[in-house]
């Protein structure tokens, strides 16, 4: 019976250096790009959660035209989310697709900003939130059309035209209600008062955002901030409203620290696929 050659120390060194190349090793898997995964997740979750929020209005809006507008904006946003989350799943390489990421993650794993999960309130509060978000998203997507990541650039280019509609429409409502009756003005002011403290998070450059910007995948949000504030201020002034004074910024959404509201939203959104895991269309 032939005996196997002894393993010498130099063999061990060589094996360590050339890991994964031996005949009995599994082929070396490409390390997934986890920062890109996380970045795509942020983009996808922002769109998904706001899309779900807007869809809550279906059948309840002040008029049928507004109902259609809100439902269509929701559709645009869920469409963006589908692209970004499918992509995130592909980058992660663990076999999760967009549906799995949307319906089978728990609240702590969501990476959306806090603004999008804020409750709808009345129509004015919803429009204030939409205006603050869409103005930001439009600038971001404009920037991302030049992303070095082809997929991020393609989705941004596809979505940016839709987002400019969202921005225009919500700006029109901010002005119409703000510069309207005493009551509509008060309600719009309340909408801004509620949502304004979640704006600083949109521009927060944490480690991941900095890395994404440095690699040319994401945007450097700090350079967008002044233009954003100028845009918001001009609409708010035309609406005869007052921007709330700067409060202590509330952060955490990007790290999974969410408000109570998101859990309730997910309960509704995830109910069906969690209760009937095999359900298909």
């Amino acid at each position: 019976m032939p005996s196997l050659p002894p393993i010498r120390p130099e063999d061990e060194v060589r094996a360590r250096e050339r890991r994964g190349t031996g005949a009995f090793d599994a082929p070396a898997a490409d390390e997934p790009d986890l920062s890109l995964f996380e970045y795509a997740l942020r983009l996808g979750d922002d769109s998904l959660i706001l899309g779900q929020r807007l869809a809550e209005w279906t059948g309840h809006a002040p008029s049928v035209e507004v109902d259609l507008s809100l439902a269509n904006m929701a559709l645009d946003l869920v469409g963006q989310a589908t692209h970004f989350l499918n992509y995130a799943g592909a980058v992660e390489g663990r076999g999760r697709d967009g549906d799995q990421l949307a319906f089978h993650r728990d609240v702590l794993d969501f990476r959306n900003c806090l603004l999008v999960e804020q409750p709808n309130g009345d129509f004015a509060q919803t429009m204030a939130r939409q205006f603050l978000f869409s103005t930001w998203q439009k600038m971001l997507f404009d920037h991302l059309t030049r992303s070095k990541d082809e997929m991020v650039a393609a989705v941004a280019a596809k979505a940016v035209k839709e987002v400019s509609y969202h921005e225009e429409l919500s700006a029109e409502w901010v002005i119409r209600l703000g510069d309207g009756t005493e009551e509509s003005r008060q309600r719009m002011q309340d909408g801004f008062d509620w949502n304004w403290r979640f704006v600083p998070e949109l521009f927060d450059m944490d480690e991941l955002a900095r890395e994404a910007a440095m690699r040319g995948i994401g945007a450097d949000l700090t350079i967008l901030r002044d233009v954003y504030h100028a845009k918001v201020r001009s609409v708010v002034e035309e609406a005869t409203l007052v921007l709330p004074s700067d409060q202590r910024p509330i952060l955490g959404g990007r790290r999974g620290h969410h408000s109570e509201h998101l859990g309730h939203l997910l309960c509704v959104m995830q109910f069906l696929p969690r209760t009937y895991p095999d359900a298909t269309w």
Partner: protein
Amino acid sequence: MVAAAVDHGAENRAAGGRQSEAIWAVLEAVPDPEIPVVSVVDLGIVREVDAQSGRVVLTPTYTGCPATLVIENMVRGALDEAGFVDVRIETTLSPPWTTDWISDVGKRKLRDYGIAPPRGRGERSVECPQCGSAETQEISRFGSTPCKALWRCCSCAEPFDLFKCH
């Protein structure tokens, strides 16, 4: 963004051979599920037909267009029925679809159907597809589908859909 408006679908078609022409003809008979008077070719959804490598490239109109999957299934069915079972369907996002890719035939069909076609670049007024009057106004930026806005004619008082510029 003038460069993006170049219709590579039309360019590609002109360059194809007889087999490609046959596939284009099949696709021309596939109606858009939401506006069945126009075909997926009229709308500019078909970006490329490559008979040699056996593929058809489609692009979605809107990011969240629920018809995207339906269109793919309908194209699949039409190709299979015509014997092109080996032709693959691929989807591309880039360059993004624009209403500039709707053919002139498509625009005429839309108008005849009662939908005002998208305005050309720099065109401000919208003509009522019923009576042709330019005295029209927007009722709602979003109509029955994401691609349409709701308008009203001040001359004949009819409401109508406008295919939005995109």
